[in-house]
Each structure stands twice: as C-alpha cells, then as structure tokens.
C-alpha cells in the first residue's frame, strides 16, 4: 500500500516540451506539497495546497502550474522545459498546513531535460 505515489518515476525530455507529473496520497491528509531537490540535495518548496486551495506559492517561474482536482491529488504541469528544470521533484502530504506536522514523501520523479 503506497502512501504517496508519483508518476512517472523517470522523465527524460527535450528543452521546450511540456510535461506533467502526477501525485496521489491515500493517507487522507489535507495538505499536499511539491518540492524540487537539486543535485546538491537541497529541498526547495514550490507549492502547497490545503483542501484543494493554494496556500504556499514560492518564487517559481510561472511555467510551473500546480493543479489539485481533489485533496488526494496534486499534479504539476511544466511548460517550455529548460535545462535548469532538471532535478528530482518530490510530492509530499501532511495532516495540517502549519509546518509542524510530519510530511510523508513520495518516491520522487527524476526529470532530465536535454
């Protein structure tokens, strides 16, 4: 039983393409997140949704657009991919939205832009 799942696990694409990453959690959590982890392992929050409502929107290029169709799903669409977008993208979820709750992470999507 996978708590937080992401698809695809690997994504290799050309510059300029548009791609989507999907995330689903079966923990019944109210809050979901997208993080970007660069090659130096630094985790950077991108977005956070609570009950389908956007609550954190960090300084991220507007080529990145999250979408939460329901509180169990949070997808990430990326337009016009650039070389600098290459990273591992993690989805996570938690009960609350205040940063005091344990966050449960998915396995990550390794994006390579050529």
């Amino acid at each position: 039983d996978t708590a937080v799942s992401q698809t695809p696990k690997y994504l290799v694409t050309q510059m300029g393409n548009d791609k989507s990453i999907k995330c689903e959690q079966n923990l019944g959590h109210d809050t979901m997140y997208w993080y970007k982890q660069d090659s130096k392992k630094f985790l950077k929050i991108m977005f956070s949704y609570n009950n389908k409502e956007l609550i954190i929107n960090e300084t991220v290029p507007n080529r990145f657009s999250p979408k939460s169709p329901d509180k169990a799903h949070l997808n990430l669409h990326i337009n016009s991919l650039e070389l600098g977008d290459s990273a591992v993208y993690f989805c996570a979820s938690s009960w609350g939205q205040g940063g005091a709750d344990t966050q449960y992470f998915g396995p990550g999507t390794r994006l390579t832009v050529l």
Partner: protein
Amino acid sequence: QKEVEQDPGPLSVPEGAIVSLNCTYSNSAFQYFMWYRQYSRKGPELLMYTYSSGNKEDGRFTAQVDKSSKYISLFIRDSQPSDSATYLCAMSRGDSNYQLIWGAGTKLIIKP
C-alpha cells in the same frame, strides 16, 4: 544568510562510531524541529521530531535542541552501514500556513 545552516559533508566514519550531525538556525521563533533521513533515490522520511528544547531518544538515535544557542543535533550510536544516507534537518514556527524550513542535508557514509 540562510535561515537554517547544515554542513553538506560528506561525513565518513567507521562502523560502530558515534555520529554527530548538526544544524544552526537564525529564527528564534522556531518551535518544531525534525530530522529526516533520505536514502539514495528515495524520498525523505521522518526520523526524529522534537518540540521546543530538550532531548529525545529513540533507540540508537538522540535528537537535541538548544534554543538558546539556536543549535540542533542528531546523535547516532553504534552506527551501522545501513545508516548511510543524507540527513536533513527541518524546522518550523508551527503557525498556520507557515512552511517547514529545510537544511541542505548532510551526507553520511558509514564504512564497514
């Protein structure tokens, strides 16, 4: 200056050694302190969770928080090769809508 500072390592120690991992922070409003462990090609998972100051022990792991010095530590006793991973500290004020602030992660290697 980053809100949370953590030496990225790598830190390499022999099996059985006591490991000390540390983070410093600048925001005195932080109340919740966490250590996440991330194995290679996996997502981070919560290892230790501490509220405010003090120590917390769980098996071979001890988390310490010194709010007066704005310094947190994770100690691993009798380290094992299976402890080899990246350890990320994270902390928060805990306010509604306030995010978790992450350290850069320390890569730990335990040599058999």
